[in-house]
């Protein structure tokens, strides 16, 4: 019984192995055909390696890319790297072997990409970075980088405030809820905001602390800000979630969010847009995950050999309460 079992397993193993080899061989042949004559079926193939699925924002990003690929008639090979660089490198090597037309990915970390990007370049496959950048010295390793401009988001928030407090005579006290310490969005949004409000000396950031991009963090920090500073006029939160957490702290302190304390946030996720439409927030600068359609345009251009700018910004906008009310019914994330 035992021996039969063993024999069976071994035979199985051989069968599986043969099948794998055969499929791989066939796949290789198939791919080399399309590789030689890419216009065979006229369909472009895009290999995309996503960071993971860590947030609602990321999920919306993934869905946008999948939907846009289907709409543009591009064949998408999708891989979820689950926050691991080795998985992404593996996926990119797979795409190179499969001879896809274009490779795109959201790098999980900034460094360590040179080798695998060189392999892609040698294989003649153009690479597009989405949402996050790499720190390679050699800029020819990738065609372009499409993603949000975090500095600009901070700047737009600051500019709205400058415009809003034009008539203010006294000092306007601002408290800031920063994102995760050291992360690019936190650094850049802080920088952009500070640059914009420098235009009006009345605008003063009296306290700035990290809330780790979470609701719980935003709430805990805001509770102490409210107790330490009796006069807070404006809250600037680096994302919606921290702002939503702070809302509860402000209400608990007996103040009216949106009136006693004006609230500016960044992202424009659904819950944040709802708060804006309800008048609890005053302004949101969008950080859009919906870069799918733009990416597909780029894929086509890059494949056709057209030159594209080295840096492309995601199409983003800003929202006031009225605009939020109008946009909310069709909001995807």
């Amino acid at each position, binding site marked *: 019984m035992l021996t039969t079992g063993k024999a069976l397993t071994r035979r199985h193993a051989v069968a599986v192995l043969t099948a794998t080899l055969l499929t791989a061989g066939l796949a290789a042949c198939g791919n080399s055909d399309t590789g030689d004559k890419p216009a065979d079926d006229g369909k472009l193939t895009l290999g995309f390696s996503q960071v993971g699925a860590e947030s609602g924002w990321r999920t919306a990003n993934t869905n946008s890319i999948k939907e846009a690929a289907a709409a543009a008639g591009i064949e998408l090979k999708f891989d979820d790297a689950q926050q691991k660089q080795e998985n992404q490198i593996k996926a990119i090597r797979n795409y190179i072997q499969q001879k896809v037309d274009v490779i795109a990915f959201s790098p999980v970390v900034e460094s360590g990409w040179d080798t695998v990007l060189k392999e892609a370049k040698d294989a003649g496959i153009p690479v597009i970075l989405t949402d996050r950048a790499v720190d390679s010295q050699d800029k020819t390793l990738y065609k372009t980088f499409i993603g949000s401009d975090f500095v600009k988001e901070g700047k737009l928030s600051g500019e709205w405030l400058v415009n809003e407090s034009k008539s203010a005579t006294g000092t306007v006290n601002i408290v800031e809820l920063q994102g995760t310490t050291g992360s690019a969005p936190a650094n850049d949004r802080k920088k952009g905001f500070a640059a914009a409000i420098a235009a009006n000396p009345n605008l003063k950031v009296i306290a700035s*602390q990290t809330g780790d991009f979470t*609701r719980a963090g935003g709430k*805990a920090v805001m509770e102490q800000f409210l107790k330490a500073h009796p006069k807070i006029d404006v809250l600037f939160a680096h994302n919606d979630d921290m702002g939503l957490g702070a809302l509860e702290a402000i209400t608990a302190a007996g103040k009216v969010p949106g009136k006693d304390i004006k609230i500016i946030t960044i992202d424009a996720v659904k819950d944040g847009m709802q708060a804006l439409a309800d008048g609890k927030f005053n302004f949101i600068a969008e950080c859009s995950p919906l870069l799918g359609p733009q990416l597909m345009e780029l894929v086509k251009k890059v494949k056709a050999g057209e030159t594209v700018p080295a840096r492309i910004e995601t199409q983003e906008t800003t929202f006031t309460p009225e605009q939020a009310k109008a946009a909310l019914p069709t909001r995807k994330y």
Partner: protein
Amino acid sequence: MSALKNHRLFWPVLVLVALLTANAIYRPSFLAVQMRDGHLYGSVIDIVRLSAPLILVALGMTLVIATGGIDLSVGSICAISGAVACFYISQQPDQNSLASVLTALVLGLGLALVLGAWNGVLVAIIGIQPIIATLILMVAGRGLAQLITEGQIITINSSPYKTIGVGHLLTLPFAIFVALAVTVLLAALTRRTALGMIIESVGGNAEASRLAGIRSRRIIFLAYVISAVCAAIAGFMLTANVSSADGNSAGLWIELDAILAVVIGGTSLAGGRFFFSGTILGALIIQTLTTTVYAMDISPQTSLLFKAVVVIAVCLIQAPAFRDKFTRRKPTAVSQKEQVPA
């Protein structure tokens, strides 16, 4: 004075008082407590409320550590139970119905029992090292929590559920009464029966205890189940605090804070004797430290260093060997052989 100084809780209490004093000097209104909307309001009240989840998790951790183990999965269990409860409530037509909130709590607690039993089986029955066994759920559990929330943040609007995190009873935060109730229950369970002694005996030497007639495996198994249940209640508080379940960040790294609280409280990581009162004090110190960072607006770049320095100071000051170097007193054996209050 000397007897007071030799008390096990003397140094942790001193640290807590020092932290509060530093805050009061920096901003005198820190200690001020006022009535607002029929309940007490102030930074100290915040500390008490926010430390409730950590106290719960740390109490469970104390029992696990007493058996000579460690439970790294408590943060994930917080996230999972909070996510299950919020998901269930979000699916109800009337989110304010008390019945559906209670059902949600039962669901969350039930799942925590299963997860605790899983840890218990891995450690006590199969014999995997606790740090590895619970690491499995620490990593996989976050994924499970995100699976439940589908990677999104579930926002709910349920006032009964919210009460667990931000409600008030007799002008004080409701959460602290929950923590108090669990403390009393656990203290009664371990100190009014032989269970506490049996746990300490298992932690001291599991094999010797078994030979003496104690079912060591059953005791170890029980410790992980209790720890998971405590974590689940903490998970309810954390999610109720912000009326939303975030599988990614709820209870993140709380296991490390809990272990720290246990150690500050004087329970040895090697197992054996355990002290609930010390653990609670440890949890209060950690929460005070976090709140201090916000209240003094210590810059985020240096706050971790600030916390580390305070924690090192607390640990060193508690070590008799270290203190003796400075006081040049003869090391006495008394400090290590005190009687154990509940």
